[in-house]
């Protein structure tokens, strides 16, 4: 049995090395003092980490990505929480069709959505790219919001709302006072999942970029094609840390994995 344990450890180590190793390398490369991307790094410095903050386009696209991730997810929750409530608490006519419509953005590849919006909303109607991006990101995150919030609603007994109504609440009051406080965790989990999904999203945003309007991942892709310096490595490392911090905090305080 001892031998088996060692085999298992080695297998797990190799798998994790393949999955996570590249990050460690990119972090090392980001801390290089040299002027081109290389590993092992040539000396140690923070110059590329600092350089990231000095690239103007990165600052603008980071702002846009943040905006989309925050407000797109909030919008998806405003649409998604009532939908999740209806899906879990009522038998809806055409329920399956409604479910499919809401889930569609998961099935349809993002690049197609982006292209379709560009061709039929941005070009002919004259919608701004930012608005199209906002709509696309909201649609993209909507299925996750509905699913995660539904999961936490399903864990909640429906009769506590009836109890609240019998104690004098209106229908909406019962939702606000008896349901909402109990699905706060699920809503926050949906927000974090939506935020991460939207922030890291590439295909949807590919076609939806205009002068000065680019999401951060798209900007990074463009930057990679032009230059070969470690600043993108530094940015990647920073973003990785940001995601890890968010997810770690969420898991620590909410038990995010319960909802996903």
């Amino acid at each position, binding site marked *: 049995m001892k031998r088996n344990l060692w085999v298992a450890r080695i297998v797990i180590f190799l798998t994790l090395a393949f999955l996570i190793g590249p990050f460690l390398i990119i972090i090392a490369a980001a801390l290089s003092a040299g002027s081109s991307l290389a590993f092992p790094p040539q000396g140690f410095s923070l110059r590329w980490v600092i350089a990231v903050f000095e690239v103007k386009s990165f600052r603008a696209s980071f702002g846009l990505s943040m905006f989309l991730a925050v407000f797109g997810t909030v919008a998806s929750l405003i649409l998604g929480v009532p939908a999740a409530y209806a899906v879990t608490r009522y038998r809806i006519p055409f329920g399956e069709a409604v479910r499919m419509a809401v889930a569609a953005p998961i099935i349809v590849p993002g690049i197609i959505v982006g292209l379709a919006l560009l061709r039929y909303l941005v070009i002919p109607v004259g919608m701004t790219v930012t608005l199209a991006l906002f709509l696309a990101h909201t649609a993209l995150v909507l299925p996750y919001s509905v699913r995660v919030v539904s999961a936490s609603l399903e864990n909640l007994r429906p009769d*506590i709302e009836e109890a609240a109504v019998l104690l004098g609440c209106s229908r909406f009051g019962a939702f606000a*006072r008896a349901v909402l406080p109990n699905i706060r965790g699920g809503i926050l989990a949906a927000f974090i999942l939506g935020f991460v999904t939207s922030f890291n999203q590439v295909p949807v945003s590919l076609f939806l970029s205009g002068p000065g309007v680019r999401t951060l991942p798209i900007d990074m892709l463009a930057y990679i094609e032009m230059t070969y310096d470690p600043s993108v490595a530094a940015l990647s490392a920073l973003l990785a840390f940001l995601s890890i911090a968010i997810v770690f905090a969420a898991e620590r305080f909410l038990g995010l994995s319960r909802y996903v």
Partner: protein
Amino acid sequence: MSDDYVVLERLKLAYGETVAVHDLDLAITRGELLALLGPSGCGKTTTMRAIAGLLAPAAGRIFIDGADVTYTPPSKRNVGLVFQSYALFPHLSVFENVAFGLRIKREPKPSIDARSRAALATVGLEGFARRNPAELSGGQQQRLALARSLVMEPKLLLLDEPLSNLDARLRLEMRTELQRLQLETGVTMVFVTHDQSEALALADRIVVMKDGIAVQTGTPEEIYNRPRDVFVADFVGFDNILYFRNGMLTSDFGSTDTGEELPGSDALAWRPAEVILGSGPMQGRVIGASFAGQYREYVLDTGLGKIKAQAPADAPPHTIGGLVAFELPLAKAHRLPGTGK
């Protein structure tokens, strides 16, 4: 009539196309403890939800205290409901669960405090105010649900299977609690149960329901001793029900000549204790025997199907597989009219 606190008039309840309750007429007297008794799916819980206002009737009217409340929202009916699952608010403390309704009514703070504490004291949960409901035992949770309803001083308290989730000791405790409550506050109570012994022990009056119809209404004694039909008889412990036709006792399995004419009835029922065991014109094979303290209970396989019988515990036991003579004494038979089979 003025003593009727709740009146249901030709009440019809339905879920979509499925009718759960047909034209129910029922008057509940002020201060009484009424049981709706029946198997699952008989419409008893549906009826209770309609009284609370959680389900809009498809037809008919509901009066509470003389006022037509058919279309009054549940929040305006001043009806308390203790859910089978208790439906406690998991995000609120024990105290806040009780105070919930008072806060919605925007009672003054000192009054909320005093009344909530009093309600908790009534059910013996004073020391638990700051706990989380999930930290309470099943019995405590139920008493909390009760306190949450009582604090609103409802004139009508509805209870859904109030004893079903409790173990034997807690059942007795809860039973006493409910009876004390009824005496002290004079609140009208309606409870739903599928357990006949629970209904018989607790209620002033019982409504037996079947397939959305009230088949018999009466005091526990009436229901127990004079079931109106085969369904009620079966429900209150008449385990041996046979049909009488043309001088013959018949069942789905066979028939036997009684040698007597019994005019005017076509179903006869005996409780196990009424079957005479050890002598008689008929014979059966013992296929089941169990000891129940005061008596032994036997299941006999007979020409009339299975017959349940009891014998005193001190009588010599019959062994499984053996043949036993028995008699279904016609003098003790309960006649069930109008069951045409």
